[in-house]
């Protein structure tokens, strides 16, 4: 079984290797190879899962040590895997959703001449993401962490001929790198504190270490949070996610909705022991989560680009998860549960959006959709189910997971609990609003279609079955996953051995919270219907209020980045280039010039007349004779 973990990672890695180096020969079968290997990986995952279910709840962790990666003195980095329930959850999500999206992409990318490479990149992503979740130490996790960043970079920039895509890819990678500083510093801190960075060394000792090394542990917590912010697009490192929608839609579904962006949640949950020992860091985590869930939701309300609206939603939903993870043992399980259900419905929503775009000549502006439900029935139904799931319609999966998080937030207790719970409720309302808006603008109302840049009239049509089948499966998941997990607290029991779980004592009862959630849901949907359902949607965006305009520009965060970081950086580098040339080089060149000037003077002595030279020779000889005589005399 242990070797199977390695194969789990190796299968898509092999796919990536073959597809990326195979050349044009594989163009015709490349997508099949990619999909098959993703499926193979999923099968391995299922086999492992079945094996795991057959064991005792406390003995389910599988480990496998492959080889020593970097052995230098006390620094022993291993390539070793650890598969426990938490990893298993991710493995299934990644390989499952991943396989579906591979299948979807066969149809979606059918007309792209670089489809083989696309599948290579997707496989590379799967491998890196699997490595991330099955690594048994932070160093190897870091490798997977950067690996998914690379895959994300390659896939966002897949249509490299578009400058906007290339810029977005670069931005994603660099913002992620800022977060990576956090992870690397965290690893260094672990090394200097614990002498190791393996999960089984660091985590059990964290609690005890916090008595003597409290500041360090808190530092580690903050650094891990920075890393999570980068990868999971949390404030203040969220700016890349919206731009990342430049990538092909399956990429947005897989990487920027279902899996990679949730890696931050995984990291925090995995490092739960550290956060438990560092309450200050936990406070920071919940703050970031709460801010982001509102931030993302507000941004989502203002975007007219369907994918960017969904991206705002992703940000907001991950905010929920981060907030839950920051709550400690009362929230870890629900963070992961929401993560899984979100993986289903958000992937489904993105695939639906992709299907819509596919039918609408790649138009992304929702103001130019409208009335599509008749033309794309399957897409409409699956998208609709995803919509109901995300807003938390009772009985669907989003209802169970989100409700639990809000409950847990209240259960945090004290003022903090109220604030977080309130933020969660507000977020739920806004979620209901913007998702209803998306739904209404896309599928209802009258047609607002316009010809594309080349003058082709859109002819909306249902997508091929390779695209609809994954959507249907995901919709299935969005509907039933939540209920399945919540029945008998199945998910809680499943994860409890890894993350630990405590109920907490909520000041408000579960029923009250559910009622409140329902109430805000109705309010959100109602407002949206009033604004976009009853009235026709203008096909050009109105100017909007100050908040709307700010939200359209990602609440001015990009402008801030642009002014402070980009412009400032440009000025800094430009002035440094100038300084390097004039000051550092100038000092040296100046020395050279003054020596040159001096030698120019001295050169005059060298007048080319042999007789002058002879005089100096004779003079020199005279001096030597004089010196000899003097030495003798002395």
């Amino acid at each position, binding site marked *: 079984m242990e070797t199977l973990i390695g194969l789990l990672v190796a299968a898509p890695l092999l796919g990536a290797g073959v597809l990326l180096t195979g050349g044009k020969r594989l163009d015709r079968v490349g997508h099949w190879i990619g999909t098959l290997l993703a499926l193979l990986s999923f099968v391995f995952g299922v086999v492992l899962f079945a094996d795991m279910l057959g064991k005792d709840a406390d003995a389910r962790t599988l480990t496998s040590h492959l*080889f*020593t*990666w*970097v*052995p*230098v*003195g*006390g*620094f022993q980095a291993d*390539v070793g895997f650890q598969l426990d329930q938490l990893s298993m959850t991710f493995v299934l999500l990644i390989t499952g959703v991943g396989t579906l999206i591979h299948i979807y992409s066969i149809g979606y990318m059918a007309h792209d001449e670089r489809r083989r490479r696309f599948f290579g990149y997707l496989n590379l992503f799967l491998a890196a993401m699997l490595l991330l979740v099955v690594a048994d130490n932070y*160093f190897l996790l*870091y*490798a997977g*962490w*950067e*690996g998914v960043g*690379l895959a994300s970079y390659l896939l966002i*920039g897949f249509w*490299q*001929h578009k*400058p906007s*895509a*290339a*810029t977005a*890819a*670069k931005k994603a*990678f*660099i913002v992620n*790198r*800022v977060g*990576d*500083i956090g992870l*690397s*510093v965290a*690893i*260094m*801190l672990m*090394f*200097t*504190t*614990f*002498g*190791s960075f393996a999960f089984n060394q660091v985590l059990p*000792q964290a609690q005890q*270490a916090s008595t*003597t*090394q409290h500041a*360090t542990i808190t530092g580690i917590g903050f650094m891990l949070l920075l890393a999570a912010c980068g990868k999971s697009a949390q404030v203040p490192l969220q700016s890349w996610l919206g731009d990342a929608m430049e990538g092909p839609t399956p990429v947005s579904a897989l990487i920027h909705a279902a899996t990679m962006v949730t890696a931050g949640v995984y990291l925090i949950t995995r490092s739960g022991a550290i956060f438990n020992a560092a309450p200050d860091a936990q406070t920071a985590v919940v703050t970031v989560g709460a801010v982001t869930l509102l931030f993302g939701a507000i941004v989502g309300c203002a975007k007219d680009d369907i994918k960017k609206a969904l991206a705002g939603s992703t940000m907001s939903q991950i905010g929920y998860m981060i907030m839950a993870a920051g709550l400690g043992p009362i929230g870890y399980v629900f963070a992961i549960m929401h993560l899984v259900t979100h993986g289903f419905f958000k992937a489904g929503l993105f695939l639906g959006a992709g299907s819509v775009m596919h039918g609408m000549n790649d138009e992304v502006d929702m103001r130019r959709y409208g009335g599509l439900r008749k033309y794309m029935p399957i897409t409409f139904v699956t998208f609709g189910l995803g919509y109901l799931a995300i807003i938390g319609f009772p009985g669907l999966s989003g209802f169970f997971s989100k409700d639990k998080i809000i409950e847990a937030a209240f259960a945090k207790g004290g003022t903090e609990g109220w604030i977080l719970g309130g933020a969660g409720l507000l977020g739920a309302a806004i979620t209901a609003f913007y998702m209803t808006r998306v739904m209404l603008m896309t599928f209802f109302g009258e047609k607002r279609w316009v010809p594309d840049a080349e003058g082709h009239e859109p002819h909306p049509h249902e997508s091929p079955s390779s695209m609809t089948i994954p959507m249907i499966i995901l919709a299935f998941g969005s509907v039933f996953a939540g209920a399945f997990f919540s029945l008998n607290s199945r998910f809680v029991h499943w994860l409890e051995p890894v993350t630990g779980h405590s109920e907490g004592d909520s000041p408000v009862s579960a029923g009250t919270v559910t009622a409140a959630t329902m109430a805000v849901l109705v309010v959100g949907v109602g407002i949206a219907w009033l604004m976009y359902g009853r009235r026709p949607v203008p096909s050009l965006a109105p100017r909007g209020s100050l908040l709307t305009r700010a939200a359209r520009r990602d609440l001015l965060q990009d402008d801030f980045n642009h002014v402070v970081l980009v412009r400032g*950086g*440009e000025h*800094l*580098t*430009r002035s*440094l*280039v100038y300084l*390097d040339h004039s000051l*550092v*080089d100038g000092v*040296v060149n100046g020395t*050279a010039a003054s020596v040159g000037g001096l030698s120019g003077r001295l050169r005059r002595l060298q007048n080319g007349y042999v007789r002058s030279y002879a005089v100096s020779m004779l003079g020199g000889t005279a001096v030597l004779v004089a010196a000899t005589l003097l030495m003798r005399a002395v």
Partner: protein
Amino acid sequence: MSFPLLTVTAAVPAVGAVVTAAVPAAQRTAAKYTALLFSLATLVLAAVVLVRFDPGGNRYQLTESHAWIKDFGLRYELGVDGIAAVMVALTALLIPFVMLAGWHDADPLEDVNPNRRWRPTQGFFALILLVEAMVVLSFEATDVFLFYIFFEAMLIPVYFLIGGFGDRAHAAGEEEAARQRSYAAVKFLLYNLAGGLIMLAAVIGLYTVTAHQLGTGTFSLQEILSARASGKLHIETSTERWLFLGFFFAFAVKAPLWPLHTWLPNAMGESTAPVAVLITAVVDKVGTFAMLRFCLQLFPEASKWATPVILVLAVISIIYGALLAVGQRDIKRLIAYASVSHFGFIILGIFAMTSQGQSGATLYMVNHGISTAALLLVAGFLITRRGSRLIADFGGVQKVAPVLAGTFLIGGLATLSLPGLAPFVSEFLVLVGTFSRYPVLGIIATLGIVLAALYVLVLYQRTMTGPVKAGIEGMSDLKARELLVVTPLIALLLFLGVYPKPVTDIVNPSVNHTLSDVHKTDPKPALEAKK
């Protein structure tokens, strides 16, 4: 007497240089193959050195020692420790690729009378082999003066390589190109000569100190070390500091360390890509290597005394080099400044005085050699195709030459230390090694990884992505010869990224020796220290 393996390893390229230079003018291709053959033979010998080296054995192995000039205590002493063995292997490894990449760089431009006795091609390849011989000898020499001789002598062939075989892709025309080329070559020479002269003074100073205290002066590293260990030799603190500074200055110029770095962008910008690789990946490594071997071993106390300043300079190099790389408009100058940043990491690792730092620094030397070679050689192919090295002249290359773009990206990703590629391991080791003793410097240095991502990706974005620019449309993809250059380098980057253990196993014992020279041990983890 056993077989003088080290001498032969250095002698083969030296003989090769003579043979190549002697090939008749018209037989250019024969000259190329001759040179390649000799470089491959050197590679085989270097591999033998690596295999014969026993990590568990003596500190210096395969030693050779002969009196040279008795009256001055000069000895012909060779020997390798793990670090030197690895560096020799790196040198021998890169030279064949440099030659293959520069296969046509020294071909005479068309309409040259074949009967003329002008033989630039022979000269180019002979000079490369000569550089190889000198570099190998300076890695192998355990006599300070012997080292000094080769350290300085290698300037001469490099000078001619920069000044005589410049980049043909120059925007400002033939005459301006020649002017800048000679400026770059002279700057290179003057900087390094200045460093070398100061070092010479320190070398002589060391001799007088040993002559004074031991009766007979010596330059032999091992004699000095054993004399110091037995207490016969005691260098006064102030003397030691001055001697250290003399040595360090020369190495810092060569390395190059901020603010002595400005020769590198000129030299790399004006020379052809293979020569630039030779400079940054091979020749400059002698500087950092010598810091490890000579500065730390000969002057342990002074090294510790100077450590704070050097570390700060190294961190400045890292950040400064990276920031300047972001601001460059010329591909090769960008890579040059990136190298300045990377050399900052190497020096940081050396002077952090932890086993992670120094092993990381040694590994970094190897990895930087390979990754820079990969990136720069592909950049060279790119530049040759377009006839320009300005970033602004490129765009959309990925569309017309995907393999070229892909290899360029991999080289770039290696440069920005992506996990899975070799430089990541070394960079992280250096950072961990630094952090465990100097947390603040470690964190500042970590910022370098963001800047690295910035300059690499900006470069990639501007040259490879976006719409296809004018002048790019007909660009051909990599040819078989070029693939032969790039593929093994990339394979090596991947291999060492995933499994660097073979190298670290050779390097670690030597690093521990060096650390014990400076009486330093790794800091204990905080938890254990508490107990």
